[in-house]
């Protein structure tokens, strides 16, 4: 099924509340501001600060 555009439109970074976007492999959402990756597992975006992965530059 994948994460729908409708859902992406209503999600934001839980940390800074800023915009997020899909990563290239479409298995995570990236907040450029906080440099965090929120994973998508079994089509569920996991928007929890504790679970987010820092992105290496």
């Amino acid at each position, binding site marked *: *099924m994948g994460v*729908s555009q*409708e*859902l992406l*439109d*209503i*999600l*934001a*970074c*839980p*940390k800074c*509340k800023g915009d997020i976007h899909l990563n290239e492999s479409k298995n995570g959402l990236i907040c450029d501001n906080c440099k965090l990756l929120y994973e998508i597992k*079994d*089509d*569920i*975006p*996991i*928007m*929890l*600060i504790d679970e987010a992965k820092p992105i290496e530059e």
Partner: protein
Amino acid sequence: MKALVTGAAGFIGSHLCEYLIEKGCEVVGIDSFTDYYPRSIKESNIAGLKDCGGFEFVEASLIEASLAKLLEGVEAVFHQSAQAGVRASWGESFKIYTDNNILATQMLLEACKDRPIKKFVYASSSSVYGDTTDLPMRETSLPAPVSPYGVSKLAAEHLCRLYFKNFSVPTVSLRYFTVYGARQRPDMAFHRFFRWALEGKPIEVYGDGKQSRDFTHVSDIVEANWLAFEKASSGEVFNIGGGSRITLNEVIEIIKEMTGVNFEVRYKDVQKGDVRHTSADMTKAKEVLGYDPKISVEEGLRREYEWIKDFMRR
């Protein structure tokens, strides 16, 4: 109509999402998968929903989520998320209750201010009444909870009323009386009784088993949420019970008959926070909402039994 359901992967929330989808609503579900009981159970609660058109799900906590965005276009909020459990609410774990039951509710209400929301239905609890001998429990009785959980549920109910009075958020609180049925939480009595019976283990009961509850089937609870959305006046509180009160010992007899297992019953000490009896006065819910519970305890237990047999095979 677009609805936001909090606690969507929980016992009641998942049933409510299915009902709303069935009604043709668009549903956004949010749940943080708290570790009160295993994540795998909650995942299986929403497994059927994930393939439904019109259902979106996000794993997030109300405390940190960007609620403003999640609420875009939402007309109905069904606030079912909470840290449940009366007995676990003492001591250090109380913070989990203040965070998920009080703070989370306040943040959701705050986010609902100045939005075109038609109704905000809050899942309150009969535990707000405490251990009263003045039965049935009426909405006008003075609430005096006997567990920290009950205190947290009552605090959130007050917040709902405040946000209606001060900011016109159209809140309604439904005081659920012990809910059961398919997907019942694994810490709840019927779920444990059935599981123990099927595992050939003795059944453990807190107290003498003569305590009684106004058990309410989950399908009646879900229906009450819809009626509250459609008909309730804002700022009000309603008792939502199952329509009859029965003792745990009577339930155990029904379970014996249903399962055909002649298990041993072990009575243990009463747990702090448990009340002796609950019984809902439903005059108001009947008159204002037209609420009329349909599922008898026998029928509801049969449905839970069918589910639990399947659940244990997984």
